[in-house]
């Protein structure tokens, strides 16, 4: 651990008092005798008197008047109770706390004899606020956990689908799942011309899973080159736009025109609706081919704006399905999806760039030193070596490597020498080394903008994945800290520990 005082006077009563302060919530009093507090309050929570600051250490005393020094900020100072006559003196204490990285100072509450209840009420209010704030963070974590679970389900299904596709001997990767052939008619309506400005819509007769392309059939195209066809594929159950095309009509041909998805759709099966509208061809709309009479009203071509049936036919259409994630081959004559709807949100897993890996440095050089670089960027391996000391830990830092929208930091942990003993690895995201140290020493949990993977033990040949989640985004770029230590303090020879494939999951 890094609490220096604890190393220095591990067994002294004063040391024990200082450790207690780092483990539990405390109330700090200034200018008030301990006996003035109701017994109930002093039984409920530890109350320490603040005597002053000496040599950068706070001098505190307990209920029995035992004084001790404290270098680190208390874990959880609930409030500073101060004699009204001593107002102003709390600044010294607040400054001392701020210097130790306490971003939000504890509330300062005046203690009036006879108004103890009011004071306690203020403290309870503060506690309640903390509880709510913690709950929000937990809820946020749980939300991510849910997302990951859903993601895992989908990945499982997609892998299973891929396996089933791979098992299909001699079959093509794409199937024509449905085809509604064009039926010629002299009285054919021009549905694009009849529809309002929002164009037409057509519910597809195939579930979303596996859909790779949709083909529509033009009987006749207009002459104006500048006309543009906008196509959208929307899911009915959740109103999501899953694909968008913007295609110059000049690129379309009479007959079938295939609109390929950027990759086959996967996940839960939904009902798809194809929306089509043409811009810039008011005087001469292209003539879309229709299938035969459609007895099912739901599948009539409809006006997008009013959802009214335009004709008693469906569009002539084809729906192609393929292996999830697979794109239509380059030789296929199809219209590629040109845009994704922006701002719809999502996750993006981004690897930390090799150039950033090269910025890795040793963060706790004040604590450890080696004859060789303890931290060694290995960009060609997409890794950073982090050699653990025999006792204690080596902490490395990637400065400002973590953007504000980061949800998760991940890396693989490996040991590159067969003679090595087991090593423990950890990742942390924090604003300062001190914050990272507290996380790594597990003195507290991650706060706003922070993440901690926990210590993960690895033996030679293992390659566990470390994950640290940022529950509440801080809105600022943070440092990434990575640390190693021997699982069993002692011999760290051959402990060629590396963090590989460090990546960030970003919220877009």
């Amino acid at each position, binding site marked *: 651990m890094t609490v220096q005082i604890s190393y220095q006077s591990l067994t002294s009563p004063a040391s024990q008092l200082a450790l207690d302060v780092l483990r539990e919530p405390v109330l700090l009093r200034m200018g008030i005798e301990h006996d003035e507090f109701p017994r109930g309050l002093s039984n409920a929570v530890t109350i320490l008197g603040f005597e002053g600051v000496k040599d950068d250490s706070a001098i505190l005393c307990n209920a029995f008047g035992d004084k001790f020094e404290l270098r680190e900020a208390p874990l959880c100072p609930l409030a500073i109770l101060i004699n009204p006559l001593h107002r102003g003196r709390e600044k010294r204490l607040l400054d001392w706390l701020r210097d130790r990285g306490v971003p939000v100072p504890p509330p300062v509450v005046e203690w009036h004899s006879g108004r103890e209840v009011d004071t306690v009420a203020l403290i309870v209010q503060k506690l309640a606020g903390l509880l709510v704030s913690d709950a929000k963070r937990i809820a946020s974590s749980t939300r991510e956990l849910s997302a990951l679970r859903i993601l895992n389900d989908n990945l499982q299904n997609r892998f299973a689908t891929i396996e089933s596709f791979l098992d299909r001997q001699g079959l093509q990767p794409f199937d024509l799942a449905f085809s509604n052939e064009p039926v010629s008619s002299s009285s054919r309506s021009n549905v694009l011309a009849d529809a309002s400005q929002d164009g037409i819509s057509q519910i597809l007769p195939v579930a979303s899973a596996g859909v790779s392309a949709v083909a529509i059939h033009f009987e006749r195209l207009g002459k104006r080159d500048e006309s543009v066809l906008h196509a959208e594929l929307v899911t009915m159950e959740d109103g999501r736009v899953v694909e968008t095309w913007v295609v110059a009509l000049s690129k379309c041909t009479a007959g079938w025109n295939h609109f390929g998805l950027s990759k086959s759709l996967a996940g839960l099966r939904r009902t798809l609706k194809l929306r089509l509208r043409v811009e810039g061809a008011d005087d001469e709309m292209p003539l879309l081919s229709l299938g035969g009479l459609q007895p099912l009203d739901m599948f009539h071509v409809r006006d997008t704006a009013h959802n009214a049936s335009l004709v008693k036919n469906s569009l002539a259409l084809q729906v192609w399905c393929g292996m999830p994630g697979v794109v239509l081959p380059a030789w296929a004559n199809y219209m590629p999806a040109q845009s994704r709807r922006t701002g719809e*949100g999502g996750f993006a897993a981004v690897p930390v760039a090799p150039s950033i890996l090269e910025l890795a440095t040793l963060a706790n050089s004040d604590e450890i030193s080696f004859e060789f670089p303890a931290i060694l960027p290995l960009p060609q391996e997409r890794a950073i070596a982090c050699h653990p000391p025999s006792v204690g830990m080596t902490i490395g830092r990637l400065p400002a490597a973590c953007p504000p929208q980061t949800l998760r930091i991940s890396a693989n942990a490996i040991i590159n020498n067969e003679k090595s003993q087991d090593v423990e690895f950890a990742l942390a995201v924090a604003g300062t080394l001190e914050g990272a140290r507290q996380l790594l020493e597990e003195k507290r949990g991650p706060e706003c903008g922070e993440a901690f993977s926990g210590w993960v033990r690895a033996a030679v040949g293992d390659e566990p994945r470390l994950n640290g989640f940022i529950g509440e985004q801080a809105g600022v770029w943070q440092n990434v800290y990575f640390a190693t230590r021997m699982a069993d303090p002692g011999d760290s020879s051959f402990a060629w520990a590396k963090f590989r494939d460090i990546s960030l999951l970003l919220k877009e």
Partner: protein
Amino acid sequence: MLDLVKHHLTAIAAPPEIEPGPARFSPRVAILIPAYKHSVLLSEAIESALAQDAPFDVAAVIVDDGCPYPETAETGRTYALAHENVFYLRKANGGLSSARNYGIEFALRHFPDLEAVYFLDADNRITPTAMRDVLAFLKSDDTVDWVYPNIDKFGIEWSGNYATQYSRLLHLTFDNICEAGSLVSRRLLDAGIRFDESMTSGFEDWDFWLQAIGRGFLGANYPFFGFEYRQRAESMLRDSNRTREGILTYLHQKHKKLFGADTLLTWEHEEAPRYVAIGIGSYAVDLFTDPTASHPKCSLEEFVTRFWAAKSEPETFGIPPFLIWLTAAHREALTRLGLIHNLLWLGERLCAKHHFVAIRLESSTTKVGIDLRKISETQHLGDKPFGWMCSLDIFSTCAEDASDDWIRSLKRAVPAPDVVEIVVTGPFTAREIQSTALSQTHALLATLGALRDSGYRLQPRERWLWRSAYLPNRNRYFELLRKAVGATPVMPRLPHRANPLRVGFLLPIASFGGVEKVAYAVAQALKAAGCEVHLFLMGKPVYNRVPENDGVFKSVNFLADDYPLWGGPNQFAGHDLLMGHDAGAKADHILGFLSGLDVVINNQVAPVNAVLGDLRRRGVKVLNYVHVLDKTRMGRDAGHPYLSLAFEHVYDKILTCSHDMTEWLHAMGVPSAKLMHIRNAASYAMSAKERDTQLTARRNRPQREKLNLLFLGRLDAQKGIERLFATARDLLAQGVPVNWRVIGSEVLDQAGGGSWKSRFNEIGLTVESPVYSSRHLSRAFNWADAIVLPSRWEGAPLTILEAQRLGCVPIATAVGAVEELIADDVDGVVIRSSDDGAVIRDLTAVITALAGDPARVRRLSETAAERNASLTWDRNVAPLVQQLSEWFPDRLAVSPPESALRLVEPPAVDPPAEAASSGQRTPRESKTRDRGDLPAHRPPQVAAARSANMFHLRVK
């Protein structure tokens, strides 16, 4: 993958922030999430609730049903602290129902603007647009009270299509088609509908919907709901399916009325009508189960569209499974005569065996009947049938067939398809019987042409709905009904809106026998008391028309099937009988035939006893009417009273026409409480004025030189025809001054010694044809001084009562309950001998004495006329009416009207020539006698037991 990730982020990462401010949080939708042991997955449900993208407030209410896992509480508490629209409620464990109810009460109490509640199980999810879209859908239609989803399962993936028009019939008889994850309107909750907290093994949601249905609420499917159902290998639902039968039994008991045949039939009519009647002339298409009830119509074009939609998506769209071509005028004529339901029932039954059913109407003033003719080389199809009927399966096959040659042969005398013709005979008016300008064969073929030439036919028959079919085809709902009711087919007769008590009279045949006359008279009395009475003929499908009965029966129904009226593979006290499981009992057919009744009165139909137990279990009150104890050839007591003993358990009441029969049944083991004596009265009504006029005429008649003697009845052994013949012959030989009129039908196969007509002719007596109308009967009684009944066995003959009423003196053998009707030498004469020779001798002596003593005849005549002056059926039937009103207090008024019998001036209707000339059997003939097992001579019937004490006990 990015799209997936983005999607999930969309789903989870944007919970609406509930900012404190002036806008008051007042949810219009509350998502209730019961939580028990789904501690981890609970967060997914909550997140999906928080992710709702709706222009109104949505509350998520977590109800922790005493979950033992601390994690559940931690999750619930955490979300409640973190989000102002999340509420975490804790309660002691009480099961899913109690948790949901707890949430409902909370939401109703705290959310004044609440419009709907959604039930989200802790392991399921909804998409972000679900509440917005579904609430809008719910509010777009006032008749929709809850909206249920298609089922999209994840885990074990499966998507089921539930997107068909909501059907209560389907919901009750198929499965719980409404997932608990439905949006429920506040008005349904305000009506007090709650989950049954005693149901802890599943299907509590089914019960919830059944309660809603019972209160008149309706659901609807929203096909793009966005409901995600987590399916794992084991679940509570799977446990429920293991105990399904037990739970279903509970549901059936709890919602007995909903599962009743009437209710289900009504829903079939409203939701999935069984028949479609297509009129080509009018291009109007009627869709109904009961054509007499109001029903929807559509155009032929719409029908064609529906037809092809049903071909494409049969579980979502449907048309009726049976097609009819019959003009509205003919349907109305059949309705007027109370035959339309029976015709449809028969047609449906025949459609299972034949490709097409032709319908022909024939006019007859004397009878109503059904004749089934299988068309063949020897029995041609008549020119231009009045109507056609066929199943959708056949017609659909024809519509898709490459050629229509096969069906076009329906125009020929012997068509290629298998055709059976139903000939309906009845008193149709000339206008009704006129065929229309358009042939119905043409109408059928034109309908086919409309379907075949439709553009929809070109569509390849590929499914457009991508979700798997789970529901049965809509045109098969009639089979669900059949299964639920246990009947095939189900009579398509809906209860009348006024909901009168419906009483069915079962008769083996409908001729002019005493059993029928009593049944008709009781039917008249019950109708006058407010019941709706129906006649069911189980044997020969002919109802010999009695003008006085016109309008009494709401319907006349013919089984018209191979249904032997006696016998069976089982034995009881020397009687062959059928039991319910015997194929010959035709249980499904009979139960379908008799469905839609509240009360059934069996009037000596032996085989139907086999299925009456099933009827009774369905809530129908079952009564048996017993008249007479017959004799076997060897003189053994036999007949329907014994069957009554065999099936006593199924009868709620056994009606008897005599004390004698009551005592016999009691002595044989039937509890007194089950017995009800209905005293006989004259079978036809007569006003006091008319009766006085006729009696006065009799009194003022000049003294005759000869005694006028009348015999009225079948010329058979039971009626003692040999005794009558011998007596007449002896009287003639002795020169006793008498005039004879012998009126009756001859039973040739029973005569043994040749035609009784011939034999009577040989001694100078002419046998007159039977008379049936009240006018002719009264005329015969007025002519006669005495009526002679030398029967070998009887019940309580109506003829005695009718003769006495007009002062005609009965001279009868003391059989059956005759002595209950005649006080010897007071209002008639009783011959107590049993030996044929003694009876002839005594009868001859009695007649000889009366012929010589006009004063005695007058005295007997006067007292006879007085005896039955006050007897009326409505008075005699009053105990039965009282009993019915006790059984159905809300359906029948307690006090019957004073005068029930309709007074109808009998029209001048000639005796049915065909009945007389063809030797058709008159009353009381049944298969028993057809089988030739009746004796020529039988000793008088003796009651099995006579006990004054028993009698006293009974009358108390």
